[in-house]
């Protein structure tokens, strides 16, 4: 394995195609190989970062000049119990594999990301959330047990009771304490393949946030779309989609709706147009003027309040609806800026940052809001409040301006008691991270890191950036 390590040098990028890094690429198929990789790293003085599907928008799975340990070949579902809803799978298994296994038996993953391509290892490392964060918390709250390999080659098992400190730190720990090898997850019972969805427009930011706050308790999922180009009194306008599971007997024919064929996303639009072509057709609209047009048109289309039933897959996996959509952002790719702000300060903080983006001529092209509640994982991003995710196109000419603006955003958000999520933000500095995590949390994490990884073998570009190594 040590021979010709140069021949493994590979350039990898992120979900937004906005940054890349070259690493020595390893694809282990067995736990023992992970141990060998750690030994090799130690011998050669290199660092290691695990990489799953590479679906984070930042540098979480990148390790420039180091070793990239790709987990996607370790992708076996080890055990599925359709009676209890417990699934045990290797860390390279994707949410897509999980839901396709469980859904026909009447179970759905308790928490899913906006794309189903993410791996369990990646989901746990960043502790992903879904549109039900206010109800179900992050994915970590549904992990019954996991096994991992520490850089010392020690194999450990963690649960909320066993090795609890590591359980709450490795989940959310951006992959810097150990490599997940298997995960046991409690799935959620469903009685239909469909969700009942209600959609209604909201005229401004205050309407958007109060709808998220007040409607959430009555639903299982809630998500807001924000027209980030609207100004003045309409700033923050958009549409709320709230959904709930169907109870037993609400769906007359659950066996039919739960069939996989009725969940899988179609590969064509209107039955004929191949979706793989769409990013090329979208490209001309991915600029300031096009984004204004598309957002405005979408808002007008959303004015109708209506209710409908939708398959789980279609409701959750919007990011998979148009494969390769991120390519429409062009050569510089895109970044996402997601802030989590307490409900008391969210409105003023976001009003400020959206206005700033419009004033600078750097509007976001897509805004998405969600409702959240706190959790007890060590590197938590959650607050009792809301999150706003903003997509920005990166170009050669806007980089410097965008960079300066996001540093201003960070100040506003931290001032408002906000936090950031490290599957997303790519520009957060170590000072900002220290400011919102607090000294105590950072030191606690570093103590655990020293315990699990005394030789500092696990390091990613993200870790170096936010912990200032």
């Amino acid at each position, binding site marked *: 394995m040590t021979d010709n390590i140069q021949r493994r*040098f590979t350039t990898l990028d992120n979900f937004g195609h906005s940054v890349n890094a070259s690493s020595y690429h390893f694809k282990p198929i067995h736990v023992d190989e992970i141990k060998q990789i750690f030994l090799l790293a130690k011998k050669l003085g290199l660092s290691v970062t695990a990489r799953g599907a590479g679906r984070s928008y930042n540098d979480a799975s990148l390790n420039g*000049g180091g070793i990239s340990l790709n987990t996607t070949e370790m992708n076996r579902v080890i055990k599925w119990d359709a009676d209890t809803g417990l699934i045990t799978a290797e860390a390279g298994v994707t949410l897509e594999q999980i839901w396709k296994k469980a859904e026909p038996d009447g179970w759905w993953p308790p928490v899913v990301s906006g794309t189903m391509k993410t791996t369990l290892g990646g989901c746990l490392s960043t502790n992903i959330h879904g549109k039900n964060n206010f109800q179900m918390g992050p994915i970590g709250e549904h992990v019954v047990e996991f096994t991992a390999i520490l850089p010392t080659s020690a194999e450990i098992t963690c649960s909320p009771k066993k090795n609890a400190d590591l359980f709450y730190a490795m989940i959310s720990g951006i992959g810097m304490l150990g490599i997940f090898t298997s995960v046991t997850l409690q799935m959620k019972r469903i009685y239909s393949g469909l969700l009942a969805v209600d959609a209604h427009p909201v005229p401004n930011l205050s309407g958007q946030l109060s709808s998220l706050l007040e409607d959430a308790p009555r639903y299982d999922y809630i998500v807001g779309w924000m027209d980030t180009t609207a100004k003045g009194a309409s700033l923050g306008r958009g549409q709320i989609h709230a959904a709930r599971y169907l109870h037993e007997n609400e769906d007359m024919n659950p066996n039919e709706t739960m069939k996989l064929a009725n969940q899988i996303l179609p590969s064509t639009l209107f039955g004929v147009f191949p979706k793989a072509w769409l990013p090329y057709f979208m490209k001309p609209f991915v600029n300031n003027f096009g984004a204004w047009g598309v957002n405005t048109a979408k808002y007008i289309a959303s004015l109708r309040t209506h209710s409908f039933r939708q398959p789980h897959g279609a409701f959750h996996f919007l990011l998979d609806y148009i494969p390769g959509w991120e390519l429409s952002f062009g050569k510089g790719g895109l970044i996402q800026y997601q802030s989590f702000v307490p409900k008391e300060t969210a409105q003023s903080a976001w009003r400020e940052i959206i206005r700033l983006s419009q004033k600078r001529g750097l509007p976001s092209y897509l805004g998405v809001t969600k409702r959240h509640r706190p959790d007890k994982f060590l590197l938590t991003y959650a607050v009792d409040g809301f999150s706003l995710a903003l997509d920005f196109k990166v170009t050669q000419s806007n980089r410097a301006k965008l960079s300066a603006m996001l540093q201003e955003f960070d100040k506003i958000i931290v001032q408002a008691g906000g936090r950031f999520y490290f599957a997303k933000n790519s520009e957060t500095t170590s000072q900002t991270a220290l400011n919102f995590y607090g000294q105590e949390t950072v030191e606690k994490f570093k103590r655990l890191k020293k315990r699990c990884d005394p030789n500092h073998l696990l390091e990613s*570009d993200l870790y170096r950036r936010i912990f200032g190594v």
Partner: protein
Amino acid sequence: MTNTTLNPATPLNPRKHGIIVGAVGGIGSALSMKLAREGYTLALLGRNKKALQSLCAEINKSIGETRAKAYEHDVLKYDSIPALLRTITKDLGGLDLFVFAPGAIYFPKMDEFNFAEDSKMIQVNTISAIAWLSEVAPLFQSMKGGQIVGISSVAGDRGRVGNPGYNASKAAFTSYLESLRNRLTRHGVNVITVKPGFVKTKMIAHVQKTPFAVTPEKVADVISMAIRKRKQTVYVADIWQWVMLVIRHIPSFIFRRLSF
């Protein structure tokens, strides 16, 4: 070596990473400054630790952030190269550009044959370049990208009476670079052969006649342009292209009788 950390790349602060072997010399230091100003993060290699560190300090001060890091290195220590390359690639966070600039020269008298000096020139100018490129080439081939810049010389275009050892060392280097180009272009790697004529550095300080001499800064400008445009062979100054075209075509029966 120095206690400076280089900032990792982010989408809004992307970085290109380069290694310059022989950074302290006239061309090397001018090129280091030029590329750092263009946004490169650089590993600067040379034997003279003090000079390297002051060059890094000058670059970092001029740009306002840490862009250059010094690595003490003797190109004749071939065995140290693989580990050093790994360390540098790790410190930089990647590698996009490799520049080989060291050059040794000895000016023999017309009737002098000096194996010791010839051998040294060939070791520094050719063998050490091959030692480095044997490590860098597979790295770039595997990552399907990157650019290699070799600073050869117009002296490699023809074997002349004045300096057989130097001519041979540069001819071999030029030829090696050409082979590398033919091997690597198909893998997305660009190889640039730079052929300066006389450059106003201490290497030629005592040489009496230096036609078409250029400053190291001019060479740096040309190399930077060649990198941007992914050129293959560049002469500095342009005039050398025509001069060498003529010289290359001088028939041997005349060339044997010439005194340059």
